[in-house]
C-alpha cells in the first residue's frame, strides 16, 4: 500500500495566493453575481419573467424545440416586448445562462475564503453549489443540461464557469506534495466526473436530492491531490458536516 500523503489539510492555507476568486471570475469575464440588473422596473420584471420562462421551456422541451412563441406565452409577455429586450431566442437564453452562472459563482464566492484550508474550501463550495442547484431545478436543468448543447455562446459561458472551478481545484497542488503523481488532467477529469454525476441526477428527476451527492463529489475532486485515504476521510467528513437528514 502506498504511504498516505502528509499534507496540511487541516493546517493553515499558504499565505500568498496568486489570484483570489474574484480575479479568476473577472479573468473569465463572468458576471460576479454581485451586480444588480440595471433596467427600469417594468422592463426589469418583464425581462426577468422571460428569463425564467426560457429556462422553464428549454428545461421541458429542450433548447432546439423551444420557440420564441413558447417563451412569450410562458412569460405572459408580448412578442413585441420580447424583441425590445432580446435579439432572438439565443440572446434570451444566453442572458438566462449569464444569470445562472452569476448565481453559481455567487454561491461559491459566498463560502470562499483564502484562509480556509483547500479541502474545506472544496467541500464548502461543492455543498453550496449542490444546494443552489437543488433549490432551483429549472435553472439547474437549463445550465447543466441544455446550455452545453445549445450553441456556441452558451457553451463558451459554461466552459468559462468550468475553468474557474478548475483553477480553484488546481490550488490543491500548492502545498508541497509529490507533485509528479498529480497528472495535468487531474482537475479536468475530476470536474467531468462530478459534472456527469450531477447531470445524471438532474435527468432522472432527482434534482432536489443533489446535496446527497456531496461525499461522492468531495471524494472525486480531492482524490488526485490528497490521495485515496485522505479523500475518503474528507468524504466522510462532508457526510458529517452536511448530514443527509438535514437536506
Amino acid at each position, binding site marked *: 500500500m502506498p504511504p498516505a500523503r502528509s499534507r496540511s489539510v487541516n493546517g493553515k492555507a499558504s499565505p500568498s495566493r496568486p489570484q483570489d476568486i474574484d480575479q479568476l471570475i473577472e479573468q473569465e469575464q463572468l458576471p460576479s453575481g454581485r451586480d444588480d440588473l440595471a433596467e427600469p422596473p417594468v422592463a426589469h420584471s418583464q425581462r426577468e419573467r422571460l428569463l425564467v420562462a426560457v429556462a422553464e421551456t428549454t428545461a421541458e422541451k*429542450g*433548447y432546439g424545440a423551444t420557440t420564441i412563441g413558447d417563451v412569450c406565452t410562458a412569460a405572459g409577455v408580448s412578442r413585441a416586448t420580447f424583441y425590445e429586450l432580446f435579439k432572438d431566442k439565443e440572446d434570451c437564453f444566453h442572458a438566462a445562462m449569464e444569470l445562472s452562472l452569476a448565481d453559481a459563482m455567487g454561491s461559491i464566492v459566498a463560502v470562499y475564503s483564502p484562509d480556509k484550508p483547500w479541502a474545506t474550501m472544496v467541500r464548502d463550495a461543492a455543498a453550496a453549489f449542490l444546494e443552489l442547484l437543488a433549490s432551483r431545478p429549472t435553472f439547474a436543468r437549463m445550465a447543466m443540461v441544455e446550455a452545453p*448543447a445549445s450553441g456556441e455562446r452558451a457553451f463558451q459561458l459554461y466552459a468559462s464557469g468550468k475553468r474557474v472551478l478548475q483553477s480553484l481545484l488546481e490550488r490543491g497542488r500548492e502545498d508541497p506534495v509529490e507533485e509528479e503523481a498529480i497528472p495535468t488532467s487531474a482537475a479536468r477529469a475530476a470536474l467531468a466526473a462530478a459534472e*456527469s454525476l450531477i447531470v*445524471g441526477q438532474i435527468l432522472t428527476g432527482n434534482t432536489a436530492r443533489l446535496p446527497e451527492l456531496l461525499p461522492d463529489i468531495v471524494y472525486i475532486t480531492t482524490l488526485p491531490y490528497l490521495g*485515496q485515504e485522505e479523500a475518503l476521510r474528507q468524504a466522510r467528513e462532508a457526510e458529517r458536516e452536511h448530514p443527509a437528514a438535514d437536506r
Partner: protein
Amino acid sequence: MIARSQRERLLDAAIDVVAEKGYAKTTIADLTKEAGISRTTFYEMFPDKEACFLAAYDVAADVLARRVASAFEAAEGEWPARVRAGLEELLGSLAAEPAVARLALVDFGAAGPAAQRRYRAALQRMTPLFDEGRDFAPEGRRLPANTSRMAIGAVVGLIAEEIEAGRATSLAKILPAVLVATLSPYLGPEAAAEEAGRG
C-alpha cells in the same frame, strides 16, 4: 430481407447526415436521399426525424459498447489490464470515425431530451465493467456509492474535450490520462499512475 437492409441504410444515413449538417438542419429529404429510399418507405419505418435519429443513435452506441466490452473480455490479466484494453478500443473506434464520435459524445444534446436520455443509458451500460474495480480498492477502504458513475463521467468528459478541441483523430494520445482517471477512484492515484505507466 430487403426491408431490413433499407432500415440499416437509413440508420447509417441518419448518423452521417446529422454528423455533417447538425441535427436541427437535417431534413427527412436529406435522409431519404442519402439512404436511397422513398419518403413513403421512411414513414413506414419511422413517424419522424427524431425517432429515426434515436434508433440510429441506439445502434451506434450498441456497436461501440459491444466492441469495448469484447476488447475488455478478451484481454489477458486482471481488471486494470482489461480496462486498458477496453479504453484502447474505445479511443481507437472513436478516432476512426471522428464525425460519429462528435455526434455520439458532444452534439447528441442538440436532438433534445430523448437523445440526452439515450446517451445516459449508453453510459450506464458501461457500469458493470467499471464496478469490477471495486474489488481492487486497498483493503478496508469503502468507496463512495457513485464511484463507477463518476469514473465513466471522467472518461467521457476527457474524450469530449479532445473532440471539441478538434483532436478526435489523435484520441489514442490521451490513453494514459483516461486510464489514470478510470483507475484512480478504485486503486488510488499512486497505484493508478503506476498501472498507466506500464504497458
